[in-house]
């Protein structure tokens, strides 16, 4: 007697092979049998009605490191068919972190991943220091599988203390970092993450950027012992720098026999040849035996912001940046000062675009208003409102912000990664892995969910760039192979029963909406799923379109291959 049979399904096995019509049986959290005909009874039988049944999707670039400690479902990723999230990217993790470094680590995480301070402080229990203690703190509450990378910045901070922010490590410190990384991997870390670009809340390089090349090489040697992976953020906006970084990654991959993955591979109107140049370099490295995996997101970038928090949209406009960084009252005063306003307007029209983004102020959308009489403006473009009022769009934005005590919320739509013609080929490229979605991050700025559904709606159905089986492979088997998830990402008897049942004709992401579901009534932007019928995690029904989240907790910690074995 099986626990579950899902019959009458169009089965995609996650290898990229064409689907077949049949059934999948599950027992004790694993796939027990599958085929065109399946005999035997089950405690539960689901008629899929001809819908698609695939391995659960794997999101390889998320930042649920904090959220997972209070939300073991990593909402709303699960409802988009994601059954495994990979946390700890970009050198930032919540462990190993000594008690005396919690304030610093929290500040860095909130700065880079744009998590509201009140929500972070209210949600984080911080009842751990080591990696093992961190995983243990949420292991029993998981409704989704969680793999976590060990953050290079955290390894440095643990071993070197404050000096991690100031200097290179000594040989002894590097040896201690290697040992600490082994302890993290033994405890269940999937690999290592590092960054060549991130800055902390004081605008200084994050600790891992102070590492000499020898330090990173030594840590990669440890990854080689475990068959574990490394993720890195390179200078993704500069073709020459990115190509050098790809060469460095290729060398590390070959020397230590490891897979290295960089994210994001990002298209921009500012550097229209970047993606092709980077892929040519990855191809060359692959031919020479390296395993360098570029991660590419599927969605264009929208940035939503208010003027009481700095946002990257203004980072290359000095007057805007300086004004927004000031205390609330001073920002308000500057927005009303004739001299400052003149500079702001001038910079709005003539300033430099931020890296990898194209920002046009008059095209900003009034996303959400605080005052009732301004509500009719929501969803409208500044340019259109200003034309009606016979005023300048930037002046209008400043007036609205002042009137609403800086609480008005604006959105810059499709500021990057928005050229479908340039993106379609690379998305379909076999070397490119779908990733960089950033789930759990930037929560007050834009929704980082639904890239999975968007891959089907935009690139399978609209553009025809991928077959459905290729899209499934890119979200499952390919990620599992690249990241060493040995029993996930494919449908085979004996493998974990992570399953997503969905409608190929309707799967998509919903519109971006604001919800107040973070601790301390904090808000964030999310997208609901469309066309996802059921999601199973290790054989446990975790989500269904009709009933929502089941509350049953079938999630597991996913480790590096050697530890998992």
């Amino acid at each position: 007697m099986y626990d579950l049979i899902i019959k009458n399904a169009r089965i995609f096995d996650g290898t990229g092979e064409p689907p077949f019509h049949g059934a999948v049986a599950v027992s004790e959290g694993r796939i027990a049998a599958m085929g065109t005909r399946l005999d035997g009874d089950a405690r539960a039988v689901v008629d899929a009605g001809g819908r698609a049944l695939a391995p659960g999707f794997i999101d390889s670039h998320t930042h649920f490191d904090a959220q997972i400690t209070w939300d073991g479902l990593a909402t709303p990723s699960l409802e988009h068919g994601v059954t495994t999230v990979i946390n700890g990217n970009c050198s930032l993790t919540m462990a190993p972190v000594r008690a005396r470094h919690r304030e610093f680590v929290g500040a860095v995480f909130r700065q880079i991943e744009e998590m509201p301070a009140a929500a972070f402080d209210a949600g984080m229990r911080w009842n751990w220091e080591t990696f093992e203690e961190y995983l243990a703190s949420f292991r029993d509450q998981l409704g989704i599988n969680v793999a976590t990378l060990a953050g290079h910045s955290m390894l440095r901070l643990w071993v070197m203390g404050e000096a991690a922010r100031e200097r290179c490590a000594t040989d002894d410190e590097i040896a201690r970092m290697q040992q600490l990384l082994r302890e993290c991997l033994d405890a269940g870390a999937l690999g290592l993450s590092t960054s060549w670009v991130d800055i902390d809340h004081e605008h200084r390089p994050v600790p891992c950027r102070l590492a000499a090349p020898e330090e990173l090489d030594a840590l990669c040697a440890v990854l080689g012992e475990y068959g574990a992976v490394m993720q890195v953020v390179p200078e993704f906006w500069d073709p020459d720098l990115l190509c050098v970084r790809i060469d460095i990654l290729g060398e590390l991959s070959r020397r230590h026999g490891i897979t290295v993955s960089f994210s994001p591979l990002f298209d921009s109107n500012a550097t229209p040849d970047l993606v092709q140049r980077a892929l040519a370099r990855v191809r060359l490295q692959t031919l020479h035996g390296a395993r360098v995996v570029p991660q590419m997101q599927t969605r264009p970038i929208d940035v939503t912001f208010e003027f009481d928090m700095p946002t990257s949209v203004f980072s290359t406009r000095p007057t805007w940046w300086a004004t927004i960084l000031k205390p609330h009252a001073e920002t308000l005063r500057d927005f009303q000062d004739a001299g400052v306003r003149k500079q702001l307007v001038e910079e709005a029209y003539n300033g430099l675009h931020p890296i990898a983004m194209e920002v046009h102020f008059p095209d900003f959308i009034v996303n959400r208003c605080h005052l009732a009489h301004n509500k009719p403006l929501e969803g409208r473009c500044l340019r259109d409102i200003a034309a009606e009022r016979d005023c300048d769009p930037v002046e209008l934005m400043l007036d609205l912000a002042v009137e609403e005590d800086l609480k008005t919320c604006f959105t810059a739509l499709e500021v990057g990664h928005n050229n479908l013609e340039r993106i379609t080929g690379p998305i379909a490229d076999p070397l490119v892995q779908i990733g960089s979605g950033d789930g759990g991050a930037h929560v007050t700025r834009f929704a980082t969910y639904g890239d999975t559904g968007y891959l089907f709606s935009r690139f399978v159905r609209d553009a025809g760039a991928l077959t459905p089986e290729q899209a499934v492979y890119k979200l499952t088997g390919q990620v599992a192979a690249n990241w060493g998830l040995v029993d996930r990402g494919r449908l085979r008897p004996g493998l974990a029963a992570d399953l997503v049942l969905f409608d190929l004709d309707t799967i998509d992401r919903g519109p971006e909406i604001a919800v107040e579901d973070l601790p301390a009534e904090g808000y964030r932007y999310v997208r609901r799923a469309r066309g996802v019928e059921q999601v199973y995690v290790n054989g446990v029904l975790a989500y269904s379109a009709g009933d929502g989240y089941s509350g049953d907790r079938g999630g597991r910690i996913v480790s590096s291959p050697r530890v998992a074995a």
Partner: protein
Amino acid sequence: MSATIEPLRPWVYPREGDDWRSIAAREFPDRPVDEAVADLQSWNLYLVFRPAPAMMTRSDIVFTGPPAA
């Protein structure tokens, strides 16, 4: 296939305590330092315009030649 891949553009990592002058003196010993610094900076604007207090770090890339024409 051989593991030797020619770089697209010459570059170096900074050493501990490096500044533009020390890199220029090391990489271009036969050239006047001020002239070499000017060239180095023109090839590495991302470091020149990096906002304070961020500094040049050991993990940075310093190009020692111009971009392809």
